[in-house]
């Protein structure tokens, strides 16, 4: 499928989905329960795609992503609630601060490999949560009240931007560099790629979008508390990426959608939900570790089969 055709098809699909969603919500066909689920779905997709860039494309095993979600959530909440500035501005600033946090966390930790990197990111995620727990300005343990400002429109726009940016990044020499790092970091070094730069860049971009998701998140649920952003949340996001297939953007999207639906329906039974999640996780890892899509994209099934990811 030609590149340009793919782009326009994506855009048309996006507009169509947006239109349908908007119509369903505005006319009240979809009640609050469903429209809330849709927005939650979008937030989860953004989170999944942002983590996909870090783990799936660049191979950096980060399991503290909820920390950046927290940064975006709290910062954007401060901007709207304390400074009474517009929502859009709040989201953008939330994203930027989250990206800076990503930079701060990434620079020292990205020199670590594998298990150690995972634990370090987990540690940082916890530290961020504990920091917010201790700041009275944002309500400490009790949390912070945030007005509901997230709409289908604002969420959808953020989603489209997220997917476009990360997809464009991936399908470029920069994305190729990141995939090279994932495949064989030493060889990537030897081929002239500044691996530290790209690892940190991918990490920061991933954090940026997690921050954006945070802004949407905090303005959707009336209250945010540090407990929302613990490692269980990081694992939730991790599960989207892993089940979707490490290295597949569309896989992350699909997994996020499916798991949001499942989790919303199982809202009443949180233990059952977690048991199902964990069993699925273990079974998938044992019997189909490449997840749903492996490293393939949904567009690979249409037209000429491209066996390489990141090709032009």
């Amino acid at each position, binding site marked *: 499928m030609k590149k340009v055709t793919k782009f326009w098809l994506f855009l048309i699909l996006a507009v169509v989905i947006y239109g349908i969603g908007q119509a369903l919500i505005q006319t009240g066909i979809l009640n609050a329960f469903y429209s809330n689920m849709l927005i939650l779905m979008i937030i989860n997709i953004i989170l999944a795609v942002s983590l996909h860039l870090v783990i799936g494309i660049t191979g950096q095993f980060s399991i503290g992503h909820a920390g950046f979600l927290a940064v975006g959530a709290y910062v954007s909440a401060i901007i709207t609630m304390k400074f009474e500035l517009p929502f859009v501005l709040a989201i953008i600033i939330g994203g930027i601060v989250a990206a800076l946090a990503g930079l701060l966390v990434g620079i020292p930790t990205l020199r670590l490999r594998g298990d150690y990197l995972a634990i370090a990111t987990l540690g940082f995620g916890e530290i961020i949560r504990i920091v917010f727990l201790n700041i009275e300005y944002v309500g400490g343990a009790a949390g912070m009240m945030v007005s509901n400002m997230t709409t289908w429109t604002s969420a959808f726009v953020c989603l489209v931007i997220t997917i476009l940016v990360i997809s464009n990044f991936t399908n470029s020499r920069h994305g190729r560099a990141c995939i090279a790092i994932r495949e064989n970091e030493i060889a990537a070094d030897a*081929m002239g790629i500044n691996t530290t730069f790209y690892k940190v860049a991918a990490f920061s971009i991933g954090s940026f979008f997690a921050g954006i998701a945070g802004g949407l998140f905090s303005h959707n649920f009336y209250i945010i508390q540090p407990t929302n952003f613990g490692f269980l949340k990081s694992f939730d996001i991790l599960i989207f990426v892993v089940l979707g297939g490490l290295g597949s953007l569309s896989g992350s999207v699909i997994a996020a959608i499916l798991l949001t639906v499942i989790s919303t329906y199982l809202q009443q039974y949180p233990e059952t939900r977690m048991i199902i999640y964990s069993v699925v996780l273990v079974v998938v890892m044992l019997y189909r570790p490449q997840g749903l899509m492996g490293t393939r994209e949904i567009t690979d099934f249409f037209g000429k089969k491209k*066996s390489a990811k990141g090709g032009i």
Partner: protein
Amino acid sequence: MGALLQVKSAGIQFGGLKAVSGFNMELNQGELVGLIGPNGAGKTTSFNLLTGVYVPTEGDILFDGKRLNGLAPYQVTRNGISRTFQNIRLFSELSVLDNVKVAYHSLAKHSILSSIFRLPSHFSEEKVMEEKSLEFLKIFQLDRFKDEKAKNLPYGQQRRLEIARALAASPKLLLLDEPAAGMNPQETHELMELIAFIRNQFDLTILLIEHDMALVMGICERIYVLDHGQLIAEGTPDVIRNHPKVIEAYLGEEVPSADA
């Protein structure tokens, strides 16, 4: 005209162990030189010193007049030294074409933002990279595999691809680490031809680690011999073939008689 590569008493120490010490080497433009020695002699370690993977704890490495000590590997590559690895290090999930494209990464200048926003510079430079990579694959007769994932190639072609990829970075000096590993005599012969071909075609200087003596004696103009991290001999193949120290290093010392 000075030597392209000058290594002066280089060495590296890990804790108490001197993996390589007092390493002296001079390579002139266009030479095809071999580096041999028994297993564990420090050959790959020397390569790692030359390419910036290890920082020398002693001595100097001068390339094209520039001191390389302490440069990161990617910087060394950008200065004109490329290498292949003992265990093939291809980007398995990337296509053959993409593997070569990665080599052009540092030549392109368009920024991350330019790619994200799909500015003209992104498209023009990507096009150039695509064309150059394709041409390169044709030279190595790998273009028929261009969309195949690197991991799916047969072993011999993978080695070929690794060499092609290293060359796509336009190096002045190419380091080949046991390129003939795992090859049968027929493949080794083809490799020898390939190496001779690329040396002429690309005006290269080549330093090659090998265990296959037929290959080394067959194409190298000069040979350096390492044992236990130190240079024990240097010279033309004829000199090395009969050098007592080299024979001793490979075959061990004479067994002392029982009543000594």
